[in-house]
């Protein structure tokens, strides 16, 4: 008798019959607070970097201007953006760099942080 064929008799599917449900009901509480702290922290760092590098006044002015354009004149988003003065290359680079740093910190902490 070939062993492979013989073992086919052992390959039975066992019906669940509520087993999974019982397991889920008996699972102890886990409240993974640390990942939420990491995400929140990285968000705050990203926002803080944006304000720090670009400047609160300029950011606020641009956000208000964009909102005003959309609300009052109901223009398409691309038309509204095209009316705005483009950010200086340095400012753009700083914003992107700051977001990238925050993202890397988030990835690193997410990868290793919950081993702590």
């Amino acid at each position, binding site marked *: 008798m070939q062993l492979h064929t*013989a073992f086919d008799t052992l390959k039975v599917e066992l019906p*669940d019959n509520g*087993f999974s449900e019982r397991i*889920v009901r008996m699972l*102890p*509480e*886990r409240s993974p607070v640390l990942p939420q702290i990491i995400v929140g922290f990285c968000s705050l760092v990203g926002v803080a970097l944006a304000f720090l590098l670009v400047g609160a006044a300029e950011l606020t002015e641009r956000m208000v201007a964009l909102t005003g354009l959309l609300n009052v004149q109901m223009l398409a988003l691309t038309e509204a953006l095209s009316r705005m003065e483009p950010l200086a290359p340095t400012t753009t680079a700083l914003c992107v760099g700051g977001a990238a740093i925050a993202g890397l910190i988030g990835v690193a902490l997410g990868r290793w942080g*919950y*081993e702590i």
Partner: protein
Amino acid sequence: MATTRLNDALLVSRAALAGDREAFGRLVERYQSPVRRLFLHLTGDEELSKDLAQECFVKAWLGVGSFRAAANFSTWLYRIAFNTFHDNNRSRRPTAAEQDAFDTPATPREIDSALDLGRAVLMLKGRERQAVLLYYVEDMAVGQIARIMRVPSGTVKSHLARARAKLSKYLTGYEKQ
């Protein structure tokens, strides 16, 4: 296979990051049959196999934060099952008679009255039994079994070779009756 791995990874992420019991429950549904079947054939005891499977899934839930997506979930889960089985084994040492039973040449009368394949598997030593069940019943490759048992592939092959020789002896003897 790739889709299953991706689905498992998504469910594990939700369970690990958000403590999502429903997501973990879907993993339990997917793997309850193979895990329970493994324990059933390892122990030969239906109630014990359910208890061990339960313990295995609870350990998986508690340790899900340490799951590394580099290994697939099933390998990780079977490793927990492997450890659970051996922890249980350590707490109930087999008798000397049980240890030696398989090495003693069986008489025709013994073969005739004794063993179908399931019970023959139970007579194997723990690691041989595990390797045989993962290879022949769960259709795993030697490499995956090696990762689960945390031994070299050569060791898995040795376990399989010894187990095959023992099982063939009994099955051949059984057929001749």
